[in-house]
């Protein structure tokens, strides 16, 4: 069975994700996260003793680029996606500092 997600946990995950959740949203998120943990728990039914962890499916290694500048000025495209800009920079709510 899934570990019960405590109020403290959901509060802390909210802080890490920089989200301010309402009371109802917290309850909904708790229920969703518990479902996810239950789902993941089914993996524990498999015996994985002695099996090497795998990070990639394909047997490919050492894919490199040479150190040569090929990209030009990408500013216009980069800023095209920004809701707000100023002085050729993206403008966001003030961060600490």
């Amino acid at each position, binding site marked *: 069975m899934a570990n019960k997600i405590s109020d403290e946990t959901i509060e802390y995950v909210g802080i890490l994700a920089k989200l301010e959740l309402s009371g109802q949203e917290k309850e909904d998120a708790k229920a969703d996260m518990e479902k996810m943990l239950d789902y993941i728990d089914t993996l524990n039914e498999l015996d994985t003793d002695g099996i090497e962890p795998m990070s990639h499916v394909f047997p490919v*290694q050492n894919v490199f680029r040479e150190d040569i500048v090929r990209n030009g000025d990408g500013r216009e495209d980069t800023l095209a996606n920004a809701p707000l800009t100023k002085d050729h920079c993206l403008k966001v709510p003030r961060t600490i500092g």
Partner: protein
Amino acid sequence: MAKQYETVIGLEVHVELATKTKIFCSCSTEFGSAPNTHTCPVCTGMPGSLPVLNKQVVEYAAAIGLATNCQITQVCKFDRKNYFYPDNPQNYQISQLYLPIARNGYVEIEVGDMKKNVRIHEMHMEEDAGKLVHDEWDDTSLIDYNRSGVPLVEIVSEPDMRSADEVIAYLEKLRTIIQYLGASDCKLQEGSMRVDVNLSVREAGTEKFGTRTETKNLNSFKAITRAIEHERERQIELLEEGKTVTQDTRRWDDNKETSYAMRSKEDAQDYRYFPEPDLVPIVISDEWIAEIKARQPEFRSGKIERYKKEFDIPQYDAEIITNSRHMADIFEKASSICGKPKKVSNWLMVETMRLLKEHGMEPEEITFSPENLAKLVMLSESGTINSSVAKEVFEKIFENNVDPDKYVEENGLKTVNDEGELQKVLEKVIAENPQAVVDYKGGKEKALGALVGQTMKAMKGKANPGMVNQKLREMLK
């Protein structure tokens, strides 16, 4: 009696690698360009973009690992470190947690007469974040992603240092090694080397470490020293008052000479690290390691010993010259051209150091060529120019890398060896300064100096002062 405390320090050092392009895309890494001009879908975290690793990053990282006596992780890979902050457009940083490129190394440091090893826990490759500038006018933050994706290595030491002096010795050693490799210019002021100080205190004689804090935003060796002393005092004060030290991340304010808590430290699990699915594993073969080793330059300690033996240069001088690889290169090249290593060393030790200080420059910023320094040494040695002219010419070489042969020729600075002309000038000087002549003949040695000076002036500095002195003595016998 008051309790004695021991300071325990470990460092995390970030070094920006001197590659031409970013770690996962072909954008330029050039410093100081207009905001966001070096950006593309990869380094701005656009969905669907694919990072491809810059081979040179692996080469530099492995070279630094080998030079600091680390074991190279021959099968290594990247991981995602998840966190939310506007300087990080992907919402994760591609870094290495489980299999960093190098581990278990050490560098030897020397403080006073004491030598010790500072162990390196691990070293990993990762990408830099963008730069945030706070706009006071709007009370907003402005983001420039030019730095996003610039390659970094982070070198994590063991908590082996016990004082600010040891910390500085370790950093200088690390910096010299990395500069010799050409892997970074390691400038603290420009942020190409960044140091985070992990510090705790414990009662002298105890084994258990105290709670540590991490101090960031240290932009010079002086700031590092001051921050260490401040943090040591702050923690001791807390303990003396019966309070506890909180494990937090602190930001140093060098103007106010104090630090303040930024945030309580997030645990590794908060970053939800997992293997980076877009990048395949890196396999570093024995052959590849051998190639990187074969390309390693002669390091500073090797050069110091060789200069002493081969060129009979004193330890102190050899240390100064080799403190910068650039200066050591100039020394070796100029010496091999003119065959006078001691003279070359002299120009570097005295005039070069003086001019660097005057201009507030680092040895790395020297722009004159070894060829021109060698030519100057030869001009001076052959007596073509005298020593005060040589100094004047050297300043021109230092400032504009002028060709001394040409410069001396064009400005008519050659020492006049025409005895007839000198004779005429000497006769004139004697005739015009009867009092000095009488004084000298009456036993006043000083008066001769005045006559030499007058002669040098009339010859516009181009005579050989020794010869003038000798001639005058003969003529006034």
